[in-house]
């Protein structure tokens, strides 16, 4: 076991453990906090994989903005105590069976894929840095980033329209 493998094993255990805790928490607020922890652990993994810019985006946008939105809606609706009891008695075993089947198929596909390099190639110092990713974003991917900005604008307008109280029915 190299130190890298031990580090990866630790991160993997933390990520899977927090994901399972998210899944089986009774309280939706705890679920959201476990998911924040999971995103932060995955951001550390991104940092270790030389994706510094994406790691920072993950922390600010995912663990920050998106999860705050989740927590806000959970507390607005007061939906944190809905029990996770399945409506039919077959729901739990069926969900576990289908999840395990999907994992088996994915694992088979990934473990028997044409082998990549056993040892990862060395990276240059600025691989994945904000400057490199940014210049790539605004040169080669200029049109997609404009489309993404329009998409964000449309979703913002859509969210406002959807949550607007109906006319003549004051709440």
């Amino acid at each position: 076991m190299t130190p890298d493998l031990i580090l990866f094993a630790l991160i993997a255990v933390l990520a899977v453990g927090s994901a399972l805790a998210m899944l089986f928490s009774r309280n939706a607020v705890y679920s959201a906090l476990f998911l924040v922890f999971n995103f932060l652990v995955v951001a550390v993994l991104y940092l270790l994989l030389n994706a510094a810019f994406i790691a920072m985006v993950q922390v600010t946008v995912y663990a920050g903005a998106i999860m705050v939105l989740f927590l806000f809606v959970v507390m607005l609706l007061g939906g944190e105590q809905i029990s996770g009891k399945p409506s039919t008695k077959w729901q739990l075993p069926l969900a576990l069976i289908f999840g395990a089947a999907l994992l088996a198929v994915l694992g088979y596909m990934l473990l028997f894929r044409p082998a990549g390099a056993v040892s990862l190639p060395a990276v240059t110092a600025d691989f994945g840095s904000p400057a490199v990713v940014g210049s790539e974003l605004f040169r080669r991917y200029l049109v997609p980033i404009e489309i993404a900005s329009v998409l964000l604008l449309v979703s913002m307008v859509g969210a406002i329209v959807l949550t607007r109280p109906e006319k003549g029915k004051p709440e």
Partner: protein
Amino acid sequence: MNVPTAYLLMLAAVLFSIGVIGVLLRRNAIIVFMSIELMTNAGNLAFIAFARELLSTAGQVFVFFTIAVAAAEVAVGLALVVAIFRTKHSIDIDQMSSLKG
């Protein structure tokens, strides 16, 4: 960090499967949404792993776009949850079985 890409892909597969189980199992609509975010995140992890193996910035750029789309999706999805809660006074997805308003 120098671990084989297959390990990272297996971690992504495990996280994705946990997300799928969450969508199938939970009835709270908000937790179903969180499980979908977990699945998106697993896909991102696979992209980053391949970007590291192939030394390509394109994978990281794609993850950036995925995060932007996920943000848009969450904004609209949570607005839908709030709108449904207004009419049904519940966010149990078993109650959302009719298309009438």
